């Protein structure tokens, strides 16, 4: 049971990490009114995919995604998981760089970005090498530190709300579903890691439903806080609407007069764990694909993370990085649909096959 809570915490933390920065911008581009419709659509699609994923995984108790693909054959692992690993490396690099950029702009304007990147990078790699147990335990720790900060950010922003800025209308028909940006938006749902944690615990749907509800509420708040403070038209031209919204808050009686600071601090905690999970996933895939021992897999983690770090270091500018980040979430959306569906179909077919064999 504790492990399920821990996995739930990881689930929430990864979503928060991806959702805090670029998520609201994409929603504002997609629609001018009724933003909640977009958020809800994205979250429901995610819920459906999680359900399919879990159903598929439960066909194979005590196996994780890689084992299942190995059952299909080595070609399946190479075909499905090699692009996945490449995507993950890119994701680590872009994630670390994007967060560093924002952290610098909030409270370390005079520090070169490679030093902050190195710090975030070392802690994540260390956690990833230590393995699943460490990740899960630290997830609770980070959750307890970051969650109050996130809540404080959300609640402190109430003082600047102008409720008339937004009307909760209804958009019909929802045109945004056909927009390619919606595909990028879908990529923010990162639940694929669940399939890598199933070898010891059996996943049940209910705890994830609770985690999913809190993530949905978080996404809604991230989208609506800048809207309530600024309104739709100014928000579209801002690079980081949520950060600007935090900067507008002035609580004179409070000893910390800079709310973005809390935002920046929570970002650090979130990105470290998110990257650790991704690196650990890479390690697991390499370990099982090449049948190496546990010690050797940590070399793979180090090798790939160094590649990611170098990649992050050489990204020339901010706009290009944000563009690439979008592409990588697009790739994530693609993998997010492919992997659960494949596993589900394979599980379904093999179960029927087994039943058929017994009849003979």
């Amino acid at each position, binding site marked *: 049971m504790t492990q399920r809570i821990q996995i739930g915490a990881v689930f929430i933390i990864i979503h928060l990490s991806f959702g805090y920065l670029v998520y609201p911008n994409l929603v504002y581009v997609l629609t001018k009114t009724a933003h909640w419709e977009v958020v809800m659509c994205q979250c429901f699609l995610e819920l459906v995919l999680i359900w399919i994923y879990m159903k598929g995984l439960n066909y194979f108790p005590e196996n994780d995604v890689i084992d299942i693909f190995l059952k299909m054959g080595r070609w399946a692992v190479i075909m499905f998981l090699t692009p996945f690993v490449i995507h993950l490396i890119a994701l680590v690099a872009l994630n670390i760089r994007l967060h560093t950029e924002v952290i610098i702009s909030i409270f370390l304007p005079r520090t070169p970005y490679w030093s902050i990147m190195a710090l975030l990078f070392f*802690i994540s790699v260390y956690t990833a090498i230590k393995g699943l147990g460490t990740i899960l335990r630290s997830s609770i720790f980070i959750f307890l530190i970051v969650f109050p900060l996130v809540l404080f950010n959300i609640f402190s922003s109430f003082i600047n709300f102008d409720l*008339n*800025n937004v009307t909760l209308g209804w958009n019909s028909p929802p045109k945004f579903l056909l927009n390619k940006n919606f595909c990028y938006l879908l990529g923010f749902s990162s639940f694929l890691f669940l399939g890598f944690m199933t070898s010891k615990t059996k996943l049940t749907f209910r705890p994830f439903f609770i985690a999913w509800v809190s993530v949905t509420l978080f996404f809604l708040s991230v989208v609506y806080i800048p809207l309530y403070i600024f309104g739709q038209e100014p928000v579209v031209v801002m690079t980081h609407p949520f950060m600007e919204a935090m*900067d*507008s808050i002035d609580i004179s009686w409070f000893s910390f007069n800079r709310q973005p600071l809390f935002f920046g601090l929570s970002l650090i905690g979130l990105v470290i764990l998110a990257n650790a999970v991704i690196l650990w996933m890479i390690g697991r895939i390499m370990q099982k694909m090449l049948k190496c021992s546990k010690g050797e897999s940590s070399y793979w983690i180090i090798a790939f993370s160094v590649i990611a770090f170098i990649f992050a270091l050489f990204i020339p500018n901010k706009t290009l990085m944000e563009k690439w980040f979008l592409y990588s979430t697009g790739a994530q959306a693609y993998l997010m649909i492919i992997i659960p569906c494949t596993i589900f179909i394979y599980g379904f077919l093999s179960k029927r096959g087994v039943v058929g064999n017994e009849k003979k």
Partner: protein
Amino acid sequence: MKKNKRYKLLIVFMSIILLCGCWDIKDINKRTIPLVLGISKEDGKEYKLTLQIPIPNKDSKISRIVTGKGETIASVLGQMRTNSEDAVDYSQIRLIVIQNNLAHNQQEFKGLIKFLMDSEEIPSRALVAITDENVENVLSNINDKLGVHASSIYDYFNKGAGWAPEIFSTPIWEVYRSPFLYTRDIAVPVVRSGKDTVLIFEGSDILKKGKIVERISPDEYQLINVFQNENKKGKGKIESLGFASIMITNSSIQNITSMKGNQPLVSSDLNLKIHILERKEGITDHMIQKELEKITEKRFYHILKQTQRSHTDIFGFGQQFHHLISYHELKDWRNEYYPKLRVDFEVHANME
């Protein structure tokens, strides 16, 4: 055992990296922290920046004024940093005073606000004020007044609710946001240096899409404030009616909006709780109530007419029509709907 040692080494190594993070840090006692920034433009060419910096002292009553000139604001800020003895930290600026010749130039004013908003150092919650005088005079006025606290200009705008309801504060982000909004305009307070006090409040400049349209008096603005910010009610305001003075102890407003064809309608009821401070002989409560109601209504219709003529929705009535008019039509609110708006404004004064 061998493995354990390797990890310990790694941790030691990591802490060395962490320590390097402090290489360019400057302690707070070696920083100069300006509170007020004045911006003006001389001869339409060079920007002139004035900083008011409190000097930490036992009584901390003194401050000094630093000025700099340059082509762009960023360059002046950098130049001031170069010339200062200590590291200058702009992140604590709380008030920005802009001289009127710069503020009245729409293009430059917009650019200035955008710069202040995008600047990572200057917080976007700093307040904005406009002055007709030379900015330098306004800021240095503090030093001339004996016994005035160095942060007094900032304190002036933050007396706390109810002490001076006419004064209001407008942060940068609100000024930045206002040109984008379809249905709401804002006002920026206008101040000048006083003879005996540090500042004198002169009224407020109304901004329409980032352009200053007109100036209104403090009394008029207070009425607008009641409409715009329900949480900043006009508490503690003292009104003189000629034959009596009263204090408004509480106010609440209720708006009902509707559309009649293409014409927007608002029926709005302002409830005032009053407390009579003094009156001449033979004046009844009823007479005072009626007079106050008449004056307030007259004042309101005067501003409404004025702003409808200039298509400036300073009351933010349009905000309340967001659910009645479709989003794409809201764009035309200022020009199409607002001049047609009819408001049934009624004041109900009640004795406390």
